[in-house]
């Protein structure tokens, strides 16, 4: 939309061709960029292209010539009221007010809450917000700014953004800004305590993006002393319900996306079926004391110190998956080399340690490409260490090398066209043009860089490794917001 706004403001008439269900988003985003009435012609999601085009090609050309309506000639200033006090009343009245909803038309066609994620919130009274603000030394009216300069990792559809220390954070998609007090208000609504506030402020630094039209999942992972300080659940069920720390912090991300980013399903948050990870929010943590010797903590991987507390904010498109092991199946592999996994790995009868990732990666890139985030228990990390992976980087490199497939196979993927720009660009690893490669030329399915993969070691006991199907996010200092 910034491109369309630039053209229209430069005096170049434009017409957008897009699906009807995207109209809310076009209008909403157009308003943010000063062209709320951009002309749109609707194409079909189901009619074959040549037949579809016949239906509307005349309308496209008319869009460039048909005189402007009165509404399309309108100019002015969009400046909605922004009162600090949103509501005055009793707690019951306030609860009902913050819980209010409005009907969002197709592609939703259902009520969607204005200020909440659908569940009741703690009412952010002045008193409660004031108490929350005791959790930080930052002033209530201070704008949220970047606390550290970082170059974003390259790649389409990532949540990565380049940032410069001191720049004001813009919350995507509406490019709104926020103060420390607004973040504290949301922390109250989510059920946080004052000691959680530096974490929520650090998460706010990410701009709380909500991704694209596919299935973006957002999650945050904490690392460093803060994990023990807040008594986070890093063990059994850490992705599930029950923690008074993981849950409200995860919820805060989504409440910030709703309120600070202005993110509305079917209007400007177009994730087709949505992701359950965003329903209530997802927050988890690394158990650094369970890392094998030589394996860096998440904070250290981002050039912070071991004693620094950070939060990694992730947005990944592939959902979450795991690999099931039969009761005792994994243990049999490592203890004595028995069972199905041992058969697949060709180590029948040979006691471990064995590289269980050989079993795990069997279908890792079958239907998607790109890096992965593996969340594993300490015992399985230890087995990898004993097998020979003396650092996380060694695992990342091994995973990445295993991801290479011939161009002929890569070409059969829907996603391939996107990352190669229709095979018209240069492959980032070999530096060869895609069209110059022979069918058997190996290219990485695991993305351009091994370290885009990520490993988190948690502290549960039952053997499992979850795959958050996307690479590492960006990390933000929690200490900077204390």
């Amino acid at each position, binding site marked *: 939309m910034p491109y369309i706004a630039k053209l229209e403001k430069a005096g170049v008439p434009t017409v957008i061709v897009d699906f009807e269900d995207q109209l809310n988003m076009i209008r909403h985003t157009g308003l943010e960029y000063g062209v709320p009435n951009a002309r749109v012609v609707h194409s079909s999601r189901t009619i074959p292209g040549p037949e579809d085009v016949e239906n509307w090609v005349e309308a496209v050309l008319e869009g460039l010539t048909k005189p402007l309506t009165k509404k399309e000639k309108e100019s*002015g200033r969009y400046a909605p009221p922004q009162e600090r006090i949103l509501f005055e009343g009793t*707690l019951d009245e306030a609860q009902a007010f913050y819980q209010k909803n409005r009907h969002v038309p197709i592609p939703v066609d259902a009520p969607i809450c204005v200020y909440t994620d659908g569940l009741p919130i703690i009412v952010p009274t002045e008193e409660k917000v004031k108490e929350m603000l005791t959790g930080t030394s930052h002033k209530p009216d201070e704008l949220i700014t970047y606390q550290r300069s970082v170059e974003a990792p390259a790649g389409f559809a990532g949540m990565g953004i380049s940032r410069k220390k001191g720049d004001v954070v813009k919350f995507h998609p509406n490019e709104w800004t926020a103060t420390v007090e607004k973040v504290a208000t949301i922390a109250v609504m989510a059920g946080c305590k004052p000691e959680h506030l530096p974490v929520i402020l650090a998460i706010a630094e990410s701009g709380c993006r909500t991704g694209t039209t596919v299935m973006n999942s957002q999650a945050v992972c904490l690392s460093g002393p803060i994990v023990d300080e807040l008594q986070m659940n890093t063990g059994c069920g850490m992705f599930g319900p029950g923690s008074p720390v993981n849950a409200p912090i995860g919820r805060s991300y989504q409440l910030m996306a709703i309120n600070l980013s202005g993110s509305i399903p079917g209007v400007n948050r177009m994730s087709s079926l949505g992701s359950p990870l965003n329903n209530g929010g997802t927050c988890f943590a690394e158990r650094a004391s369970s890392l094998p010797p030589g394996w860096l903590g998440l904070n250290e991987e981002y050039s912070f110190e071991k004693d620094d507390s950070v939060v990694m904010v992730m947005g990944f498109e592939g959902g979450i998956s795991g690999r099931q092991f039969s009761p005792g199946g994994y243990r049999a592999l490592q203890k004595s080399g028995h069972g199905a996994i041992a058969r697949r790995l060709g180590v029948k009868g040979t006691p471990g340690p064995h590289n269980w990732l050989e079993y795990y990666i069997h279908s890792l890139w079958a239907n998607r490409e790109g890096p992965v985030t593996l969340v594993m228990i300490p015992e399985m990390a230890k087995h990898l260490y004993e097998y020979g992976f003396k650092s996380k980087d060694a695992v990342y490199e091994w995973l990445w090398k295993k991801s290479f497939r011939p161009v002929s196979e890569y070409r059969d993927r829907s996603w391939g066209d996107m990352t190669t720009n229709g095979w018209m660009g240069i492959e980032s690893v070999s530096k060869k043009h895609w069209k110059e490669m022979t069918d058997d030329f190996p290219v990485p399915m695991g993305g351009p860089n091994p370290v885009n993969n990520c490993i988190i070691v948690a502290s549960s006991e039952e053997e499992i490794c979850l795959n958050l199907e996307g690479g590492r996010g960006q990390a933000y200092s929690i200490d900077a917001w204390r």
Partner: protein
Amino acid sequence: MAATKDKVYKCLNPVGIQEPVDISPLAPRLDTLEGKTIHFSITGEPDITIALEKKLKMDYPDINWTAKKSYTPMPNQLTDEEIKTTDGVILGVCW
């Protein structure tokens, strides 16, 4: 208890800060397309865009067509110099 229940609270606004936006009128439309340079900014959805580009070039030969392609929703944009010599833009399929 009744006093507490009836107590009036001031509750804060969690909504992000919207900087004022200057709304612009759309660019004036063209009197005719004949002899004009119209740019087709292609952004993915090849089933539609290939058919549309073909039809535009075949059925409207009096228009000077230019095009740039991207297979992502991010358009491959005209330069400022190219904008100066472009009379209209069709963008699809995305916004």
